[in-house]
Protein backbone atom coordinates (compact mmCIF):
# COMPACT_ATOMS: atom_id res chain seq x y z
CA UNK A 1 0.00 0.00 0.00
CA UNK A 2 1.35 3.40 -0.79
CA UNK A 3 0.24 6.72 0.56
CA UNK A 4 -0.34 9.58 -1.84
CA UNK A 5 2.08 12.45 -1.36
CA UNK A 6 0.73 15.84 -2.35
CA UNK A 7 2.43 19.03 -3.40
CA UNK A 8 0.97 22.22 -4.89
CA UNK A 9 1.16 20.73 -8.36
CA UNK A 10 -0.88 17.66 -7.50
CA UNK A 11 -3.35 19.18 -5.04
CA UNK A 12 -6.74 19.85 -6.62
CA UNK A 13 -7.95 23.39 -7.20
CA UNK A 14 -11.15 24.18 -5.31
CA UNK A 15 -11.94 20.52 -4.78
CA UNK A 16 -11.76 17.80 -2.17
CA UNK A 17 -8.41 16.15 -1.39
CA UNK A 18 -10.32 13.43 0.44
CA UNK A 19 -13.75 13.30 2.06
CA UNK A 20 -12.52 15.37 5.01
CA UNK A 21 -10.16 17.88 3.47
CA UNK A 22 -10.85 20.59 0.90
CA UNK A 23 -8.26 22.48 -1.10
CA UNK A 24 -8.86 26.12 -2.06
CA UNK A 25 -6.71 27.73 -4.73
CA UNK A 26 -6.08 31.45 -4.34
CA UNK A 27 -4.82 33.48 -7.25
CA UNK A 28 -4.86 36.92 -5.76
CA UNK A 29 -8.44 36.24 -4.77
CA UNK A 30 -10.18 36.22 -1.39
CA UNK A 31 -12.17 33.73 0.66
CA UNK A 32 -14.01 34.11 3.93
CA UNK A 33 -12.94 31.46 6.44
CA UNK A 34 -14.30 30.52 9.79
CA UNK A 35 -11.41 30.69 12.23
CA UNK A 36 -9.62 27.46 12.99
CA UNK A 37 -10.50 25.69 9.75
CA UNK A 38 -7.25 26.21 7.84
CA UNK A 39 -4.91 23.28 8.48
CA UNK A 40 -2.03 23.96 6.07
CA UNK A 41 -1.08 26.02 3.03
CA UNK A 42 1.51 26.44 0.32
CA UNK A 43 2.32 29.86 -1.14
CA UNK A 44 1.88 33.35 0.18
CA UNK A 45 -1.41 33.81 1.95
CA UNK A 46 -2.40 36.48 4.45
CA UNK A 47 -5.06 36.00 7.05
CA UNK A 48 -6.74 39.11 8.33
CA UNK A 49 -9.44 39.63 10.86
CA UNK A 50 -12.44 40.90 8.99
CA UNK A 51 -12.57 44.09 10.95
CA UNK A 52 -9.36 45.05 9.20
CA UNK A 53 -9.83 48.51 7.77
CA UNK A 54 -8.84 47.69 4.22
CA UNK A 55 -11.47 44.95 4.10
CA UNK A 56 -14.30 47.11 5.28
CA UNK A 57 -15.95 47.35 1.92
CA UNK A 58 -15.80 43.58 1.41
CA UNK A 59 -17.50 43.04 4.72
CA UNK A 60 -20.20 45.52 3.82
CA UNK A 61 -21.01 43.73 0.58
CA UNK A 62 -20.75 40.12 1.75
CA UNK A 63 -21.57 40.13 5.43
CA UNK A 64 -25.15 41.07 6.00
CA UNK A 65 -25.75 39.42 9.29
CA UNK A 66 -24.48 40.66 12.60
CA UNK A 67 -22.22 37.64 12.65
CA UNK A 68 -19.56 37.58 15.22
CA UNK A 69 -17.05 39.18 13.00
CA UNK A 70 -14.15 37.95 15.09
CA UNK A 71 -15.02 34.36 14.23
CA UNK A 72 -14.18 34.96 10.60
CA UNK A 73 -11.03 35.83 8.74
CA UNK A 74 -10.34 36.77 5.16
CA UNK A 75 -7.67 34.76 3.37
CA UNK A 76 -6.03 36.46 0.43
CA UNK A 77 -2.94 35.90 -1.64
CA UNK A 78 -1.83 33.15 -3.93
CA UNK A 79 -1.30 29.51 -3.21
CA UNK A 80 -3.23 26.48 -2.13
CA UNK A 81 -4.72 26.05 1.31
CA UNK A 82 -6.33 23.06 2.97
CA UNK A 83 -9.52 23.39 4.98
CA UNK A 84 -10.95 20.87 7.42
CA UNK A 85 -13.26 20.77 10.40
CA UNK A 86 -12.87 18.27 13.26
CA UNK A 87 -12.61 15.36 10.82
CA UNK A 88 -16.18 15.89 9.68
CA UNK A 89 -17.02 15.31 6.04
CA UNK A 90 -16.58 18.47 3.99
CA UNK A 91 -18.16 19.31 0.67
CA UNK A 92 -18.25 22.27 -1.63
CA UNK A 93 -21.43 23.64 -3.10
CA UNK A 94 -21.80 25.82 -6.17
CA UNK A 95 -24.59 28.32 -6.27
CA UNK A 96 -25.65 29.98 -9.48
CA UNK A 97 -28.02 32.81 -8.83
CA UNK A 98 -29.29 30.57 -6.08
CA UNK A 99 -29.90 30.39 -2.39
CA UNK A 100 -29.08 27.81 0.21
CA UNK A 101 -29.75 27.89 3.90
CA UNK A 102 -27.37 26.05 6.18
CA UNK A 103 -26.90 25.36 9.86
CA UNK A 104 -24.46 28.00 11.04
CA UNK A 105 -22.07 25.57 12.69
CA UNK A 106 -21.62 23.67 9.44
CA UNK A 107 -20.36 26.54 7.29
CA UNK A 108 -16.55 26.62 6.88
CA UNK A 109 -15.78 29.06 4.11
CA UNK A 110 -17.30 30.95 1.20
CA UNK A 111 -16.33 33.15 -1.72
CA UNK A 112 -17.05 36.85 -1.30
CA UNK A 113 -19.18 36.78 -4.44
CA UNK A 114 -21.84 35.21 -2.22
CA UNK A 115 -23.81 37.25 0.24
CA UNK A 116 -24.21 35.76 3.70
CA UNK A 117 -27.44 36.55 5.49
CA UNK A 118 -29.10 35.39 8.62
CA UNK A 119 -32.02 33.03 8.08
CA UNK A 120 -35.44 33.64 9.59
CA UNK A 121 -35.01 30.18 11.12
CA UNK A 122 -32.83 30.73 14.17
CA UNK A 123 -29.38 29.15 14.01
CA UNK A 124 -29.30 29.05 10.22
CA UNK A 125 -27.55 31.21 7.65
CA UNK A 126 -28.56 31.82 4.05
CA UNK A 127 -26.09 32.21 1.21
CA UNK A 128 -27.36 34.05 -1.83
CA UNK A 129 -25.85 34.68 -5.24
CA UNK A 130 -23.27 32.98 -7.39
CA UNK A 131 -20.18 31.33 -6.00
CA UNK A 132 -18.75 28.46 -4.03
CA UNK A 133 -18.91 27.62 -0.36
CA UNK A 134 -17.59 24.78 1.78
CA UNK A 135 -19.60 23.12 4.51
CA UNK A 136 -19.09 20.25 6.95
CA UNK A 137 -21.45 17.46 7.92
CA UNK A 138 -21.33 14.51 10.26
CA UNK A 139 -21.15 11.73 7.69
CA UNK A 140 -21.69 12.41 3.99
CA UNK A 141 -24.52 14.74 3.09
CA UNK A 142 -27.58 12.99 1.73
CA UNK A 143 -29.74 14.98 -0.67
CA UNK A 144 -33.45 14.31 -0.54
CA UNK A 145 -36.45 15.92 -2.13
CA UNK A 146 -39.62 17.04 -0.41
CA UNK A 147 -42.08 16.03 0.81
CA UNK A 148 -40.08 14.83 3.78
CA UNK A 149 -39.99 15.21 7.55
CA UNK A 150 -36.60 15.54 9.15
CA UNK A 151 -35.28 15.23 12.69
CA UNK A 152 -34.09 18.76 13.45
CA UNK A 153 -30.68 17.48 14.48
CA UNK A 154 -30.14 15.64 11.20
CA UNK A 155 -30.85 18.73 9.13
CA UNK A 156 -27.84 20.35 7.46
CA UNK A 157 -29.79 22.81 5.33
CA UNK A 158 -32.04 23.25 2.38
CA UNK A 159 -32.12 24.93 -1.02
CA UNK A 160 -35.14 26.59 -2.57
CA UNK A 161 -37.68 24.96 -0.27
CA UNK A 162 -40.28 27.60 0.35
CA UNK A 163 -41.84 26.27 3.50
CA UNK A 164 -39.87 24.66 6.26
CA UNK A 165 -42.26 24.19 9.15
CA UNK A 166 -42.67 22.24 12.35
CA UNK A 167 -44.47 18.92 12.51
CA UNK A 168 -45.57 17.28 15.73
CA UNK A 169 -46.40 13.60 15.90
CA UNK A 170 -49.39 13.45 18.17
CA UNK A 171 -49.53 9.68 18.17
CA UNK A 172 -46.07 9.60 19.65
CA UNK A 173 -46.74 12.33 22.14
CA UNK A 174 -50.09 11.19 23.40
CA UNK A 175 -49.34 7.51 23.99
CA UNK A 176 -48.90 6.27 27.52
CA UNK A 177 -45.21 7.06 27.53
CA UNK A 178 -45.73 10.33 25.77
CA UNK A 179 -48.17 11.31 28.48
CA UNK A 180 -45.77 10.29 31.17
CA UNK A 181 -43.06 12.26 29.52
CA UNK A 182 -45.24 15.29 29.15
CA UNK A 183 -46.21 15.09 32.82
CA UNK A 184 -42.86 14.33 34.29
CA UNK A 185 -40.50 15.71 31.74
CA UNK A 186 -38.62 12.42 31.96
CA UNK A 187 -37.43 10.59 28.93
CA UNK A 188 -36.45 13.67 27.04
CA UNK A 189 -37.45 14.77 23.60
CA UNK A 190 -36.55 12.90 20.49
CA UNK A 191 -36.88 13.43 16.79
CA UNK A 192 -39.87 11.16 16.60
CA UNK A 193 -42.24 13.62 18.15
CA UNK A 194 -41.09 16.77 16.46
CA UNK A 195 -39.71 17.17 12.96
CA UNK A 196 -39.09 19.86 10.40
CA UNK A 197 -41.41 19.31 7.48
CA UNK A 198 -40.50 20.31 3.95
CA UNK A 199 -42.95 20.45 1.07
CA UNK A 200 -42.75 22.01 -2.37
CA UNK A 201 -39.89 22.08 -4.82
CA UNK A 202 -36.33 22.10 -3.57
CA UNK A 203 -33.63 19.98 -1.99
CA UNK A 204 -33.09 19.06 1.64
CA UNK A 205 -29.62 18.20 2.99
CA UNK A 206 -29.36 15.54 5.68
CA UNK A 207 -26.51 14.34 7.86
CA UNK A 208 -26.28 11.36 10.15
CA UNK A 209 -26.07 13.10 13.40
CA UNK A 210 -27.83 13.71 16.56
CA UNK A 211 -24.71 15.02 18.14
CA UNK A 212 -24.75 18.50 16.75
CA UNK A 213 -21.75 20.45 15.77
CA UNK A 214 -21.11 23.49 17.87
CA UNK A 215 -23.44 26.27 16.97
CA UNK A 216 -21.79 29.24 15.44
CA UNK A 217 -23.13 32.43 16.83
CA UNK A 218 -25.09 34.25 14.19
CA UNK A 219 -25.97 37.21 16.30
CA UNK A 220 -29.40 38.24 17.39
CA UNK A 221 -31.86 39.93 15.12
CA UNK A 222 -33.14 43.27 16.23
CA UNK A 223 -35.60 43.23 19.07
CA UNK A 224 -38.74 43.91 17.24
CA UNK A 225 -42.25 42.54 17.19
CA UNK A 226 -42.69 39.80 14.61
CA UNK A 227 -39.04 38.84 14.41
CA UNK A 228 -38.47 35.27 15.61
CA UNK A 229 -35.80 35.07 18.22
CA UNK A 230 -35.58 38.77 18.48
CA UNK A 231 -38.50 39.72 20.65
CA UNK A 232 -38.89 39.55 24.36
CA UNK A 233 -40.83 36.32 23.91
CA UNK A 234 -37.49 34.58 23.80
CA UNK A 235 -36.01 32.11 21.42
CA UNK A 236 -38.75 29.79 20.20
CA UNK A 237 -36.67 26.65 19.86
CA UNK A 238 -33.85 27.40 22.19
CA UNK A 239 -31.50 27.06 19.24
CA UNK A 240 -31.27 30.62 18.18
CA UNK A 241 -29.06 32.51 20.51
CA UNK A 242 -27.18 29.54 21.84
CA UNK A 243 -25.15 30.11 24.94
CA UNK A 244 -21.98 32.04 24.64
CA UNK A 245 -23.40 35.32 23.55
CA UNK A 246 -22.82 37.31 26.64
CA UNK A 247 -23.73 40.93 26.47
CA UNK A 248 -24.87 40.53 22.94
CA UNK A 249 -25.48 44.07 21.90
CA UNK A 250 -22.59 45.67 23.69
CA UNK A 251 -20.38 43.04 22.21
CA UNK A 252 -21.55 43.80 18.71
CA UNK A 253 -21.26 47.48 19.20
CA UNK A 254 -17.73 47.07 20.26
CA UNK A 255 -16.91 44.71 17.43
CA UNK A 256 -18.26 46.97 14.80
CA UNK A 257 -16.90 50.03 16.46
CA UNK A 258 -20.36 51.51 16.78
Amino acid at each position, binding site marked *: *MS*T*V*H*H*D*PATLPADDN*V*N*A*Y*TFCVELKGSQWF*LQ*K*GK*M*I*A*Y*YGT*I*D*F*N*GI*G*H*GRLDRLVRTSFHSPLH*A*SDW*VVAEGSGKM*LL*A*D*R*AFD*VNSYDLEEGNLTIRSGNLLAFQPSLALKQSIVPGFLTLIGTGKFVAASNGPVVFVEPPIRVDPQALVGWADCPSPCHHYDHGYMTGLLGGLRAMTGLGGASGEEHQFEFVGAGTVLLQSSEALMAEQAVGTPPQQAGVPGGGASGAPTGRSGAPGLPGQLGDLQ*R*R*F*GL
Partner: protein
Amino acid sequence: MDSGSVSTRGPCSVHPWRGYFRSVAMFRLQGSKVLAVDMTQDAVKAKNGSMVAYDGEMAFKKLSGGGEGLRGMVTRRITGEQMTVMEVRGQGTCWFADRASEITLVGLQGDKLYVESSNFLAADAGLRTGTSFTGTRGASQGNGLFTTTIEGHGQAAIMSDGPAVVLRVSAQYPLTVDPGAYVAHQGNLRQSFQSGVTFRTLFGEGGGEAFQIRFEGDGLVYVQPSERNTIAGDV
Protein backbone atom coordinates in the same frame (compact mmCIF):
# COMPACT_ATOMS: atom_id res chain seq x y z
CA MET B 1 14.62 28.06 16.53
CA ASP B 2 16.61 25.61 18.51
CA SER B 3 16.08 21.95 18.07
CA GLY B 4 17.58 19.30 20.27
CA SER B 5 17.10 15.60 20.10
CA VAL B 6 17.42 12.82 22.60
CA SER B 7 17.45 9.38 21.19
CA THR B 8 18.51 6.19 22.87
CA ARG B 9 18.22 2.63 21.85
CA GLY B 10 15.13 0.73 22.79
CA PRO B 11 15.18 -2.43 24.88
CA CYS B 12 14.99 -4.60 21.81
CA SER B 13 17.80 -3.16 19.84
CA VAL B 14 20.44 -3.06 22.56
CA HIS B 15 21.18 -6.62 21.53
CA PRO B 16 21.97 -6.18 17.87
CA TRP B 17 22.64 -9.84 17.27
CA ARG B 18 19.05 -10.70 18.03
CA GLY B 19 18.09 -8.77 14.96
CA TYR B 20 19.59 -11.51 12.89
CA PHE B 21 17.10 -14.06 14.11
CA ARG B 22 14.25 -11.72 14.63
CA SER B 23 11.57 -12.04 11.99
CA VAL B 24 9.79 -8.79 11.26
CA ALA B 25 6.23 -8.20 12.39
CA MET B 26 3.94 -7.62 9.42
CA PHE B 27 1.86 -4.46 9.61
CA ARG B 28 -1.30 -4.20 7.54
CA LEU B 29 -4.38 -2.02 7.69
CA GLN B 30 -7.77 -3.61 8.07
CA GLY B 31 -10.00 -0.84 6.84
CA SER B 32 -8.57 2.56 7.68
CA LYS B 33 -8.96 2.49 11.46
CA VAL B 34 -7.63 -0.89 12.49
CA LEU B 35 -4.02 -2.02 12.38
CA ALA B 36 -3.48 -5.77 12.14
CA VAL B 37 -0.03 -7.05 13.00
CA ASP B 38 0.93 -10.61 12.15
CA MET B 39 3.59 -11.82 14.53
CA THR B 40 5.75 -14.90 14.70
CA GLN B 41 7.46 -14.67 18.08
CA ASP B 42 8.49 -11.10 17.35
CA ALA B 43 7.38 -7.92 19.05
CA VAL B 44 5.88 -4.49 18.51
CA LYS B 45 5.71 -1.40 20.65
CA ALA B 46 2.23 0.07 20.78
CA LYS B 47 0.30 2.71 22.65
CA ASN B 48 -0.84 1.29 25.95
CA GLY B 49 -4.35 -0.12 25.83
CA SER B 50 -4.71 0.08 22.06
CA MET B 51 -5.09 -3.68 21.61
CA VAL B 52 -8.70 -4.45 20.66
CA ALA B 53 -8.43 -8.14 19.78
CA TYR B 54 -5.96 -10.94 19.11
CA ASP B 55 -5.78 -14.58 18.29
CA GLY B 56 -2.94 -16.93 19.10
CA GLU B 57 -0.77 -16.32 22.14
CA MET B 58 0.38 -12.87 23.15
CA ALA B 59 2.31 -11.52 26.09
CA PHE B 60 2.08 -7.89 27.15
CA LYS B 61 4.73 -5.87 28.89
CA LYS B 62 4.56 -2.29 30.05
CA LEU B 63 7.46 -0.18 28.95
CA SER B 64 8.39 2.69 31.16
CA GLY B 65 8.87 6.09 29.65
CA GLY B 66 8.15 5.79 26.00
CA GLY B 67 9.99 2.66 25.17
CA GLU B 68 13.25 4.51 25.08
CA GLY B 69 16.01 4.52 27.60
CA LEU B 70 16.66 6.49 30.74
CA ARG B 71 17.47 9.81 29.15
CA GLY B 72 14.23 9.71 27.23
CA MET B 73 12.37 9.22 30.47
CA VAL B 74 14.07 12.15 32.09
CA THR B 75 13.18 14.32 29.16
CA ARG B 76 9.60 13.27 29.45
CA ARG B 77 9.55 14.03 33.13
CA ILE B 78 10.78 17.53 32.39
CA THR B 79 8.48 18.22 29.51
CA GLY B 80 5.47 16.70 31.21
CA GLU B 81 4.89 14.62 28.15
CA GLN B 82 3.04 11.45 28.96
CA MET B 83 3.08 8.47 26.74
CA THR B 84 2.88 4.94 27.95
CA VAL B 85 3.88 2.25 25.57
CA MET B 86 3.52 -1.49 25.82
CA GLU B 87 5.43 -4.24 24.17
CA VAL B 88 3.37 -7.03 22.66
CA ARG B 89 5.18 -10.22 21.77
CA GLY B 90 3.77 -13.47 20.51
CA GLN B 91 2.48 -15.66 17.78
CA GLY B 92 -0.69 -14.79 15.93
CA THR B 93 -2.50 -11.68 14.82
CA CYS B 94 -3.02 -8.70 17.06
CA TRP B 95 -5.42 -5.88 16.16
CA PHE B 96 -4.82 -2.33 17.36
CA ALA B 97 -7.13 0.68 17.25
CA ASP B 98 -7.58 3.83 19.28
CA ARG B 99 -10.75 5.88 19.54
CA ALA B 100 -11.63 5.29 15.90
CA SER B 101 -8.60 7.26 14.74
CA GLU B 102 -7.46 6.89 11.16
CA ILE B 103 -4.18 5.04 10.77
CA THR B 104 -1.34 5.68 8.35
CA LEU B 105 1.54 3.26 7.85
CA VAL B 106 5.00 4.72 7.46
CA GLY B 107 7.87 2.60 6.23
CA LEU B 108 11.26 3.70 7.50
CA GLN B 109 14.47 2.93 5.64
CA GLY B 110 17.01 4.26 8.06
CA ASP B 111 15.42 7.70 8.26
CA LYS B 112 13.78 9.40 11.19
CA LEU B 113 10.10 10.06 11.74
CA TYR B 114 8.97 12.80 14.12
CA VAL B 115 5.45 12.23 15.41
CA GLU B 116 3.35 14.04 17.99
CA SER B 117 3.32 11.60 20.88
CA SER B 118 -0.45 11.52 21.01
CA ASN B 119 -0.45 10.39 17.38
CA PHE B 120 1.84 7.40 17.87
CA LEU B 121 0.10 4.03 17.62
CA ALA B 122 2.66 1.30 17.02
CA ALA B 123 6.11 0.54 15.69
CA ASP B 124 8.21 -2.47 15.01
CA ALA B 125 10.08 -3.21 18.25
CA GLY B 126 13.37 -3.00 16.38
CA LEU B 127 12.92 0.72 15.73
CA ARG B 128 14.58 3.15 18.11
CA THR B 129 12.29 5.63 19.79
CA GLY B 130 13.20 8.84 21.52
CA THR B 131 11.98 12.30 22.34
CA SER B 132 12.70 15.44 20.44
CA PHE B 133 12.09 18.97 21.51
CA THR B 134 11.52 21.66 18.96
CA GLY B 135 10.96 25.31 19.54
CA THR B 136 10.68 27.18 22.79
CA ARG B 137 7.68 29.03 21.60
CA GLY B 138 5.65 25.88 21.19
CA ALA B 139 6.42 25.07 24.79
CA SER B 140 5.26 28.35 26.15
CA GLN B 141 2.08 28.09 24.12
CA GLY B 142 1.39 24.65 25.49
CA ASN B 143 1.27 23.20 22.04
CA GLY B 144 3.43 20.27 22.88
CA LEU B 145 5.90 20.28 20.08
CA PHE B 146 7.74 17.60 21.93
CA THR B 147 7.64 14.87 19.44
CA THR B 148 8.46 11.22 19.59
CA THR B 149 11.16 10.20 17.18
CA ILE B 150 11.22 6.82 15.52
CA GLU B 151 14.33 5.76 13.69
CA GLY B 152 15.69 2.71 11.93
CA HIS B 153 14.45 0.14 9.48
CA GLY B 154 10.90 -1.09 9.82
CA GLN B 155 7.30 -0.05 9.94
CA ALA B 156 5.47 2.40 12.15
CA ALA B 157 1.78 3.26 12.41
CA ILE B 158 0.67 6.77 13.21
CA MET B 159 -2.88 7.87 13.82
CA SER B 160 -4.84 11.01 13.16
CA ASP B 161 -8.29 12.43 13.70
CA GLY B 162 -9.56 11.84 10.17
CA PRO B 163 -7.28 10.51 7.43
CA ALA B 164 -3.91 12.22 7.31
CA VAL B 165 -2.95 14.19 4.22
CA VAL B 166 0.71 13.79 3.29
CA LEU B 167 2.26 17.00 1.95
CA ARG B 168 5.64 17.16 0.26
CA VAL B 169 7.99 19.99 1.14
CA SER B 170 10.76 20.95 -1.27
CA ALA B 171 13.01 23.95 -1.84
CA GLN B 172 10.45 25.22 -4.30
CA TYR B 173 7.45 24.58 -2.06
CA PRO B 174 7.77 25.49 1.59
CA LEU B 175 4.71 24.63 3.67
CA THR B 176 2.86 26.33 6.51
CA VAL B 177 0.85 24.21 8.95
CA ASP B 178 -1.51 24.90 11.80
CA PRO B 179 0.03 23.43 14.99
CA GLY B 180 -3.29 21.78 15.88
CA ALA B 181 -3.38 19.87 12.61
CA TYR B 182 0.27 18.78 12.66
CA VAL B 183 0.70 15.04 13.06
CA ALA B 184 4.18 14.04 11.95
CA HIS B 185 7.04 14.76 9.58
CA GLN B 186 10.04 13.01 8.13
CA GLY B 187 13.00 13.99 6.01
CA ASN B 188 15.40 16.87 6.16
CA LEU B 189 13.17 19.69 7.33
CA ARG B 190 13.68 22.90 9.25
CA GLN B 191 10.77 24.28 11.17
CA SER B 192 10.11 27.78 12.36
CA PHE B 193 7.21 29.65 13.82
CA GLN B 194 5.43 32.52 12.23
CA SER B 195 2.54 34.66 13.18
CA GLY B 196 -0.80 33.65 11.72
CA VAL B 197 -3.68 36.06 11.54
CA THR B 198 -3.17 39.75 11.64
CA PHE B 199 -5.57 41.30 14.05
CA ARG B 200 -4.71 44.88 13.47
CA THR B 201 -8.34 45.53 13.76
CA LEU B 202 -10.85 48.00 14.89
CA PHE B 203 -11.82 45.71 17.69
CA GLY B 204 -8.36 45.42 19.11
CA GLU B 205 -9.14 41.89 20.19
CA GLY B 206 -9.13 38.53 18.56
CA GLY B 207 -8.43 34.99 19.52
CA GLY B 208 -5.04 35.76 20.95
CA GLU B 209 -2.01 35.67 18.76
CA ALA B 210 -2.28 32.83 16.34
CA PHE B 211 0.86 31.19 15.08
CA GLN B 212 1.75 28.69 12.44
CA ILE B 213 4.62 26.29 11.81
CA ARG B 214 6.61 26.78 8.63
CA PHE B 215 8.52 23.85 7.14
CA GLU B 216 11.39 24.33 4.73
CA GLY B 217 13.79 21.84 3.22
CA ASP B 218 13.03 18.48 1.76
CA GLY B 219 10.62 15.97 3.27
CA LEU B 220 7.06 15.02 4.08
CA VAL B 221 4.58 16.52 6.54
CA TYR B 222 1.48 14.66 7.76
CA VAL B 223 -1.52 16.80 8.69
CA GLN B 224 -4.94 15.77 9.96
CA PRO B 225 -8.31 17.25 8.91
CA SER B 226 -8.97 18.38 12.45
CA GLU B 227 -7.38 20.58 15.03
CA ARG B 228 -6.41 19.59 18.50
CA ASN B 229 -7.28 22.16 21.06
CA THR B 230 -4.40 24.51 20.96
CA ILE B 231 -4.12 27.65 22.92
CA ALA B 232 -2.99 29.63 19.94
CA GLY B 233 -3.22 28.19 16.40
CA ASP B 234 -6.40 29.99 15.68
CA VAL B 235 -6.79 30.39 11.95
